[in-house]
C-alpha cells in the first residue's frame, strides 16, 4: 500500500498547490470588492464562487469534511450574491474576507492533517448560514429536492446530459461520482449508465474510465450551473448538455458560437418526441467508440473542434521548466563557443559562416526569451497574501491601516517570486509595527487621518524589478536609532553619520529600537536577514525616511536569476561581465578630468558631475592591468539610489548573453561578485556586482581616511571636498609611476598616500 499512499500524497500535493493559487485569486478579487463594494464586477463574484467551488470539490475527493462543510456554506452565499439575491455591502465584504481567511486556515489544517476547533470559526459560519440559507449553522443547510425542483419563480427545465469520459479521466483525479452528487444538489437526477465499453475482468485496467452516462436533470438552475459541474473535466470527456424544452439543443460550443438559438414552444407530443430523439442521439453518441457525430440538422462545426477549446494553459512541473532553462543555458554557451571558433577561421570561411551564426544567435535568443517567459509570473501571487497579513496585524496592533497596491501584474522570474515572500512579509510587518503610529489617536495628534496607509507597489526599472513598501507613519527616529546603535556597539559614539547612513543602521545585525519585543516584528534580527537574503539574490534593499511623514523601503531584484545580457570587459588577463542594464556609457577620461580626493578615492569629472572610480585591478589584485585611468576605459554604471560609479577596465570585449551560475550554490559568496558564467572558450568569468564594488571601493577609501574627516564621501558632494592641485598632482604622479605587473594593490595604495 505504500505505493498507493505515495500516489495519494502526490494528488493531495497538487490539490493544495491549486488551492494556494485559487486562494490568491480569491484574495485579489476580494480586495477589489473591498475597495469598490458599490460597483461590483459580476465576473469577480463568479470567479470567487468558482474558487470556493473548486476547493470544495477537491476537499470532497480527499474527505476533508470540515473543509467541505464550510466551503459549502460559503459557496452558497456567493451563489446567492451572484444571482443578485443578496446586496453587496461593506459588512458582507468584510464577512467574505473573514470567510476566505477561515477557508485558508481550513485548507492549511487539512494539509497538516488536523482540524480547526469549531469555535475558531463558528461565528462566521453562523453569519454565512444566516445569509446563505436564512438559518443558523446547526440546522441542515443541504437543499432538499423539493426546494430545488419546485421553485415558484424560476423556470424548471430538464437537461439531458451526455457524459462520455475519456479513458484517462480517472487518472486525472476526476471522479464521476462527485459530478453525479453535485448534479443531485441541483435538482432531480435520473441516471442511465452505459457499460458497453467495460472489458472483462482479465482485460480491464484499474484506473481507466469505461462507463458513460446519460443524465436527465430536472432543475431550476441555469445552463451555466450545469456546465459548471463539468468545468474541470471538459478536457477528459465528450460532453453534451441539451435543454429538453428547446428544439435547438444547446451545446456548450454552439452556445458560444451561435447565441441566437431558436426556442420552440413546448407541446407535450413535441417534448416527448424531442426527448426520445435526444436520448437516442445521446445513446448513439455513448456507444460510438470515438467522438460522437453531431445530430443531423445541426450545423457541423468547422474543423476538428469537437473537443472544448476553452483551456488555454497547462500545469507543468517546475523541474521540467528548469531542465529546459538549463539546456537553453548550455545552448547559449555552445553558441558563444562556436562563434568564437568561427572568428579563428580564414576570412572567406568566417564570412560564409557569419550569416548562419547570425540566424543561430537570433533563434537562440528567441528560444531563451520564450523559455524564460514560461517562468515569468506576476508578483500578484505574492502581493495577494499581503492584504490578509495587513488585516491581521492591524487588528492585533489596534491600528487602522489601509493597504494600497499597484503593479501586481509586473512579471518576474518564478525563482525570484519564491524568494520574495519572506522579505516582503517582514517589510510589511515592520511598517505596521514600527512605522505606523501606536494608535489612531496618535495619528490624529500628528495631524494625520486615523486611517494609516501602507502602499505596496512593483515596477520594472532598468531591467530589474523594484518592490516598494511605503507607509505614512512616523518615519525613522534617527536619534533613537543612533543611540541604539551606539549602545549595541554597532557604531562608535564619535561617528558622524549622514541621515541616510543612520537609516541604514536598521539593517545591522541584531539591531532593534523596539522597547518591547513584539510577536509582530520579533526581536529586530529580521532586517539584516532580509538584506542578506535579498543580496544573495543579486538584489538590494534601501530605506528612505522622512521623520513624521513616513518611510519607504525599496527592494530591487533582478528579473531573472538564469541569464543576463552582459558586457564582457577585460582587466589584465581577467575577463568580467557587467550587466548591460547597469551600464550608462563608457569613456576614456583625459588626465584633466581625473581628480583625487583627500581620502584616497579617485573621481572622474563628467559633464559637471564627479563620479567615483572603482579600480578592479586594485580590488581584486589583478596584475598586468592598465592602472592609468587616462589610458584605460571607464565604464559608467548606475548603482542603487540612481548614483553612478565608473569601473576602470582595460577594454570592452563585446556584448554577450551569459548564463548565470550561482556562486552561493556552487562556491561561496564573493564580495563584489554577483555570480559567475562560462564563456564561449569554456573559461569561467565573474559577473560584477556593481553595488558591491562601490561598497568595497568606499571601504577601501574609508581605510585611508584621516580620523578627523567625516564619513564616506558621496559622489554628489565631491566638488566641495576636492583639492584641485592635489588631485592633479596625484593623477599625474599616478600616470608617471607605472607599477610593476606583480605589484600589490596595497603597495600602490601606499604610494598614493605618500603622494598626497
Amino acid at each position, binding site marked *: 500500500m505504500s505505493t498507493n499512499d505515495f500516489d*495519494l500524497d502526490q494528488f493531495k500535493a497538487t490539490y493544495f498547490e491549486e488551492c494556494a493559487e485559487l486562494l490568491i485569486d480569491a484574495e485579489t478579487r476580494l480586495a477589489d470588492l473591498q475597495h469598490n463594494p458599490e460597483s461590483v464586477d459580476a465576473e469577480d463574484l463568479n470567479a470567487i464562487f468558482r474558487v470556493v467551488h473548486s476547493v470544495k470539490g477537491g476537499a470532497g475527493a480527499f474527505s476533508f469534511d470540515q473543509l467541505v462543510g464550510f466551503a459549502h456554506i460559503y459557496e452558497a452565499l456567493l451563489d446567492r450574491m451572484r444571482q443578485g439575491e443578496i446586496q453587496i455591502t461593506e459588512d458582507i465584504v468584510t464577512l467574505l474576507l473573514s470567510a476566505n481567511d477561515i477557508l485558508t486556515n481550513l485548507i492549511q489544517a487539512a494539509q497538516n492533517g488536523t482540524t480547526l476547533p469549531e469555535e475558531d470559526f463558528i461565528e462566521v459560519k453562523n453569519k454565512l448560514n444566516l445569509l446563505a440559507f436564512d438559518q443558523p449553522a446547526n440546522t441542515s443547510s443541504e437543499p432538499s429536492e423539493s426546494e430545488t425542483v419546485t421553485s415558484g419563480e424560476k423556470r424548471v427545465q430538464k437537461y439531458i446530459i451526455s457524459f462520455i469520459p475519456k479513458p484517462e479521466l480517472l487518472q486525472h483525479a476526476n*471522479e464521476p*461520482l462527485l459530478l453525479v452528487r453535485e448534479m443531485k444538489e441541483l435538482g432531480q437526477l435520473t441516471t442511465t449508465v452505459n457499460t458497453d465499453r467495460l472489458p472483462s*475482468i*482479465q482485460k*480491464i485496467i484499474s*484506473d481507466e474510465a469505461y*462507463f458513460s*452516462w446519460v443524465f436527465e436533470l430536472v432543475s431550476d438552475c441555469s445552463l451555466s450551473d450545469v456546465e459548471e459541474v463539468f468545468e474541470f473535466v471538459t478536457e477528459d470527456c465528450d460532453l453534451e448538455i441539451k435543454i429538453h424544452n428547446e428544439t435547438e439543443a444547446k451545446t456548450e460550443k454552439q452556445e458560444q458560437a451561435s447565441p441566437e438559438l431558436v426556442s420552440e414552444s413546448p407541446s407535450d407530443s413535441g417534448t416527448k418526441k424531442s426527448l426520445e430523439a435526444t436520448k437516442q442521439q445521446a445513446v448513439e453518441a455513448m456507444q460510438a467508440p470515438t467522438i460522437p457525430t453531431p445530430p443531423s440538422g445541426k450545423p457541423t462545426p468547422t474543423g476538428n473542434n469537437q473537443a472544448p477549446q476553452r483551456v488555454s494553459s497547462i500545469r507543468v512541473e517546475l523541474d521540467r521548466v528548469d531542465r529546459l532553462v538549463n539546456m537553453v543555458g548550455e545552448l547559449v554557451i555552445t553558441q558563444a563557443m562556436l562563434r568564437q571558433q568561427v572568428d579563428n577561421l580564414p576570412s572567406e570561411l568566417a564570412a560564409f559562416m557569419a550569416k548562419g551564426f547570425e540566424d543561430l544567435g537570433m533563434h537562440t535568443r528567441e528560444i531563451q526569451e520564450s523559455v524564460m517567459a514560461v517562468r515569468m509570473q506576476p508578483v500578484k501571487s505574492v502581493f495577494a497574501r499581503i492584504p490578509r497579513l495587513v488585516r491581521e496585524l492591524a487588528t492585533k496592533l489596534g491600528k487602522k491601516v489601509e493597504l494600497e497596491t499597484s503593479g501586481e501584474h509586473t512579471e518576474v522570474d518564478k525563482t525570484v517570486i519564491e524568494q520574495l515572500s519572506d522579505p516582503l512579509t517582514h517589510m510589511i510587518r515592520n511598517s505596521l509595527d514600527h512605522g505606523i503610529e501606536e494608535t489612531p489617536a496618535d495619528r490624529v495628534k500628528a495631524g494625520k487621518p486615523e486611517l494609516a496607509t501602507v502602499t505596496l507597489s512593483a515596477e520594472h526599472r532598468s531591467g530589474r524589478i523594484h518592490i516598494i513598501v511605503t507607509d505614512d507613519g512616523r518615519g525613522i527616529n534617527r536619534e533613537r536609532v543612533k543611540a541604539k546603535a551606539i549602545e549595541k556597539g554597532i557604531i562608535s559614539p564619535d561617528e558622524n553619520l549622514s541621515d541616510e547612513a543612520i537609516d541604514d543602521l536598521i539593517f545591522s545585525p541584531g539591531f532593534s529600537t523596539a522597547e518591547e519585543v513584539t510577536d509582530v516584528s520579533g526581536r529586530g534580527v529580521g532586517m539584516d536577514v532580509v538584506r542578506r537574503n535579498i543580496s544573495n539574490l543579486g538584489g538590494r534593499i534601501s530605506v528612505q525616511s522622512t521623520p513624521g511623514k513616513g518611510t519607504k523601503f525599496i527592494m530591487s531584484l533582478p528579473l531573472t536569476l538564469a541569464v543576463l545580457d552582459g558586457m564582457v570587459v577585460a582587466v589584465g588577463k581577467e575577463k568580467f561581465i557587467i550587466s548591460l542594464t547597469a551600464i550608462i556609457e563608457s569613456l576614456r577620461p583625459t588626465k584633466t578630468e581625473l581628480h583625487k580626493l583627500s581620502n584616497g578615492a579617485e573621481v572622474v569629472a563628467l559633464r559637471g558631475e564627479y563620479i567615483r572610480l572603482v579600480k578592479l585591478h586594485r580590488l581584486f589584485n589583478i596584475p598586468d592591468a592598465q592602472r592609468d585611468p587616462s589610458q584605460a576605459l571607464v565604464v559608467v554604471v548606475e548603482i542603487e539610489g540612481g548614483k553612478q560609479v565608473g569601473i576602470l577596465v582595460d577594454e570592452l570585449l563585446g556584448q554577450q548573453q551569459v548564463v548565470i551560475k550561482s556562486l552561493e550554490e556552487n562556491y561561496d559568496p564573493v564580495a563584489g561578485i554577483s555570480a559567475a558564467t562560462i564563456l564561449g572558450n569554456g573559461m569561467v568569468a565573474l559577473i560584477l556586482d556593481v553595488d558591491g564594488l562601490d561598497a568595497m571601493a568606499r571601504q577601501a577609501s574609508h581605510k585611508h581616511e584621516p580620523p578627523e574627516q567625516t564619513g564616506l564621501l558621496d559622489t554628489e558632494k565631491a566638488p566641495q571636498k576636492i583639492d584641485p592641485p592635489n588631485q592633479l598632482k596625484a593623477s599625474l604622479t599616478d600616470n608617471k609611476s607605472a607599477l610593476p605587473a606583480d605589484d600589490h594593490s596595497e603597495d600602490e595604495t601606499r604610494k598614493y598616500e605618500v603622494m598626497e
Partner: protein
Amino acid sequence: MKLEVSDQTATIELAPSLDIFVAEELLALFVDADNQSLDLNINAQGVEKASTACLQIIHSAAVSCIEADRAFQITEASDALVTAFKDLGLYSKITMRS
C-alpha cells in the same frame, strides 16, 4: 483486502475506502478468483467510501462471473456502497442483499 477460498467460492471483504488507489489491488483479487474459476462472494459491510474505478472493477467481475456461469453476489452492502451504485446508475444491474 484478501481472497479467502472455500468450496469453490472466493470471499473478499472490501476495504473501508474503495478509492482509486485500491483499485489495482481489488482488480488483482478478482483476476486471481477468475483465474481459479471461483464463485465470488463480496462482503461490503465495511465500505465507507467508493469510487468509480472500484465500482467498474466490481461490475466487470460480476459480468465476467455471470458470463462464465459462476455465482456473484455482494452481501451486507453498506449504505455508502449502495448509494454509490445508485448514483452511478448501476443499482439495478446486479443483485445486492443488504
